[in-house]
């Protein structure tokens, strides 16, 4: 009993202080994947049954809706492509680096950390799909979080609403740069060190600022929910609601930003310059 107890203590210390155990942890996670899959079965089968009982008309309606949405989004993407090219050409004229094109990989949620204090989810992509620790994760509406643990078949994502997580943001309207920290259970973000004179109000959109080189620039993070000035306190209390559907969206996107892409983009913007000149 004493031996195993001491062994546990030593393991904890090693795990806390070093990264020596990461390999064995990821191997064990891979071995225990069936547990996660089984735990997800009720959810999965509930959706399966729902699909089975949805009628032909419902499905047809959904397809029509999705098709019209697809056309709408396609038009916007085409416009976006033109704007990106123009933007990069202008940035080239200013002599600044071109914006990067981000590649994404779709992953499915297979588990949620059962401890409500810890805002973590498990996704079905791992090191086999070249997911790496620190990789930003998005959903269709905004920033979700970052990868904190990778194993061959799945990885753990820390959500931006976790108390241990902070993300550098920028207010879209006033370009004010701030840090948004998670609040835990409330699934809200708290903006740190906001001056009482700062230009921020309810409804302001927060984007990732890209400072800290962890998250890509310009993805929606949240919308300011409440601004409270307390007399006698040096900073205002500002809360924001995350844009992403944290822990509720079934599919998330893993972002790959390659440095090689940056060079390519520079080359193309250089060509643009030549043509301009």
């Amino acid at each position, binding site marked *: 009993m004493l031996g195993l107890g001491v062994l546990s203590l030593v393991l904890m210390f090693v795990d806390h202080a070093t990264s020596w155990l990461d390999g064995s942890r990821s191997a064990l996670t891979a071995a225990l994947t069936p*547990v996660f899959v089984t735990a*997800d079965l*009720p959810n999965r089968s509930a959706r399966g049954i729902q699909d089975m009982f949805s009628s032909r008309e419902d499905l047809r309606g959904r397809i029509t809706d999705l098709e019209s949405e697809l056309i709408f989004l396609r038009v916007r993407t085409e416009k976006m492509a033109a704007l990106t090219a123009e933007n990069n050409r202008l940035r080239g004229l200013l002599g600044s680096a071109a914006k990067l094109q981000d590649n994404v990989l779709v992953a499915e949620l297979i588990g949620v950390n059962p401890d409500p204090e810890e805002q973590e989810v498990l996704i079905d992509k791992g090191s086999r799909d070249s997911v790496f620790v620190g990789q930003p994760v998005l959903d269709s509406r905004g920033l979700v979080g970052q990868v904190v643990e990778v194993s061959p078949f799945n990885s753990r994502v820390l959500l931006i609403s976790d108390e241990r997580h902070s993300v550098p943001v920028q207010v879209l309207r006033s370009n004010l740069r701030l840090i948004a920290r998670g609040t835990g259970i409330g699934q809200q973000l708290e903006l740190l060190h906001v001056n009482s004179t700062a230009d921020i109000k309810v409804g302001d959109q927060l984007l990732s600022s890209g400072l800290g080189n962890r998250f890509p620039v310009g993805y929606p993070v949240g919308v300011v929910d409440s601004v409270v000035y307390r007399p006698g306190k040096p900073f205002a209390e500002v809360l924001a609601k995350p844009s992403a559907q944290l822990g509720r969206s079934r599919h998330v996107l893993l972002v790959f930003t390659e440095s090689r892409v940056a060079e390519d983009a520079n080359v193309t913007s250089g060509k643009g310059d030549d043509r301009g000149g």
Partner: protein
Amino acid sequence: MIAVADNRTGGLVIIWVTIVAGMVLAVVPLPQFVPVELGFLRPDWVAMVLVYWIIALPHRVGIPTAWLAGIAVDVLLGSLIGQHALSYVLIAYVAASLYQRLRMFSVWQQATILFALLGLNQLTGFWVESVAGHTDWSLWYLLPAVSGAFLWPWVFLMLRSIRRWIGVT
């Protein structure tokens, strides 16, 4: 089933199947319509299953089994490797030294002892987390022990009927 009765490995399979079932219950996501706060009530299923087997078959399930299960739970929950292993070893030690007395108790008397054991489990977990630099203590941490104690009679009766049905000795 009768063939399994005198087969040691067969019994071991059943014991581990119940432990893994406890692990599945430990990580199963709550449905959307349930408030998140309900997650605080989730008992430590693996600890309860371990305590049952230690009381029922102390010569087969003991501290080494508890330690292995603890390592697996640490990996599943993403906690420090060794955290659950340590707390399971502790409660397995207490349960193994009390098993003769626990067998004599009625199921509700056992439940009160379970409350103490699961409380010890939570306390150890909290102690490790506070050393690693986490949160403050609050009585909320004992909620899983309370819910675990209330669920103990059902866990006990179900596991006993499984054991008798399959004949694990």
